């Protein structure tokens, strides 16, 4: 996959190193040069006004950032969430894919320590990863039109927490009742990239 790929009004940059990616994200957000700076699992995507910035300008900014990424990412918190497996929509499929029965899968899941890789998708939505051994799952062939807030999605090596009711394509293996987004708080996202999460049984 090319390291930098330009589109009409955005550019994708592959940055595999999670710390470097987050530092560059914070630097570019602080610079207010781009309309949007969005972090992906292995990339940053910068959206720009093509009447204000040309590809040469954007390339120069990216090169400078990649050569000397200076800055720090904030310290991490640990969150303990109670998970209700009774709300799973895809437990049978997921546990079968993991070569476990449902009880074995739930036991395995509760013994993983998850890390928040990044925020995205919706306000408060968290992408999680763990160091355990798990085969990758595919997203659903057809996304569900409505997933309940607090639902836990699972794709093997990665998981997610839905912050709001809405559409979603991840297999669902349970839910938490703790709200992870509160628009009346500052910041409204309870979770941040780098935070640790422990799931506990109901």
């Amino acid at each position, binding site marked *: 996959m090319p390291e930098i790929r330009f589109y009409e*009004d955005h550019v994708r940059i592959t940055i595999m190193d999670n710390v470097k990616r987050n530092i560059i994200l914070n630097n570019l957000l602080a610079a207010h040069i781009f309309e949007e700076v969005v972090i992906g699992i292995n990339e940053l995507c910068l959206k720009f006004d093509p009447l204000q910035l040309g590809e040469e300008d954007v390339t120069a900014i990216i090169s400078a950032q990649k050569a000397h990424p200076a800055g720090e990412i904030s310290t991490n918190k640990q969150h303990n969430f109670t998970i209700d497996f009774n709300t799973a929509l895809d437990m049978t499929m997921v546990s079968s894919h993991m070569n476990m029965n449902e009880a074995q899968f739930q036991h395995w899941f509760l013994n993983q320590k998850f890390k928040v890789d990044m925020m995205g998708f919706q306000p408060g939505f968290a992408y999680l990863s763990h160091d355990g051994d798990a085969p990758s799952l595919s997203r659903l062939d057809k996304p569900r039109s409505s997933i309940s807030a607090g639902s836990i999605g699972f794709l093997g090596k990665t998981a997610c927490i839905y912050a709001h009711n809405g559409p979603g394509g991840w297999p669902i293996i349970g839910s938490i009742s703790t709200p992870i987004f509160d628009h009346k708080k500052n910041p409204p996202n309870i979770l941040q990239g780098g935070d640790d999460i422990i799931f506990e049984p109901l």
Partner: protein
Amino acid sequence: MIEIISIGLLATLQGKAYRGNRHLGMPHCGPADPISMAIANRLAGNAYDAVSIEFSILGGTIKAHSDIIIGLAGPIEKIIIDRDGIELNCDHYSSITLMKGDIILIKPLREGAHIYLSVHGGFVADHYWDGNSTFLPAQIGGYGGKALQRGDYLENNKNMQSIDTVSVPERYRLSYSNHHVMRICGENDRIGDYLSQNDWYIGRQGSRIGYELLSNSPSELDKSVITDYDGLSRAVFAGTIQYPPSGNPFLLGVDAQTTGGYPIIGHVIRADRHIMGQIKSGDSLRFITQKPREARRVYENKLNMWRAFIPDLYLD
């Protein structure tokens, strides 16, 4: 102040989008059709993105509780003002002065999806993260983050002030259809061919979040042409076209998520994204492919054309 008398399918307050917050997972939001909302605001003497009512699919009826100047735009068949029991027909291509007690009925065309009603000064709305548009899933912005309902009272920001009456020049009067053509940049040439050679229609999954694209006789997309895909979540925007395993492409709208893990096969060009705001379930759709360089030129020309009438218009 105005009162909502009736709502067709859905109505929300839309205004400033939540630009610059996608790293927090906050979608763009704002009007589904920003040009139509900007026209309504121009008629009402406002900035292009002053908070307005967005009526989805089926118009609505409001009552003025003070003398106000309003602007309307979008797929409107006609508007009728009930003033003291007398029905008045109005030209909706011009600024309209409503007197206290007037009731205005907005009848939509069968074509198109969103009508905008702006009031001089703009409606008062919840402000959040530099935006004030309604985002229903998170109950943010607009009228307490909620859809408008019968009996809601909406305040406007200024008292009655005289402004020049404005009419929409002929060349800026948009026409509406159940058939849409949008220019796209395909992820690569072969994917662009696949998108442009099929006749698409909008499936039942159609909303501000996005639109499922169906075809009666779709040509198969050879999966091997999707080369830039690793299955990992990455940024998506309004106008991004995803390709889920179902084989039905999904066109993302203004309220769409900020990241996604399905393959990305194309993007509606910046100049044409406003068209997405007037498509609805059952409408037909064709794509025309362009290169990014051409798309930027088209964007510049279109923006300059519109800025001759709406000087502060911004399209993204």
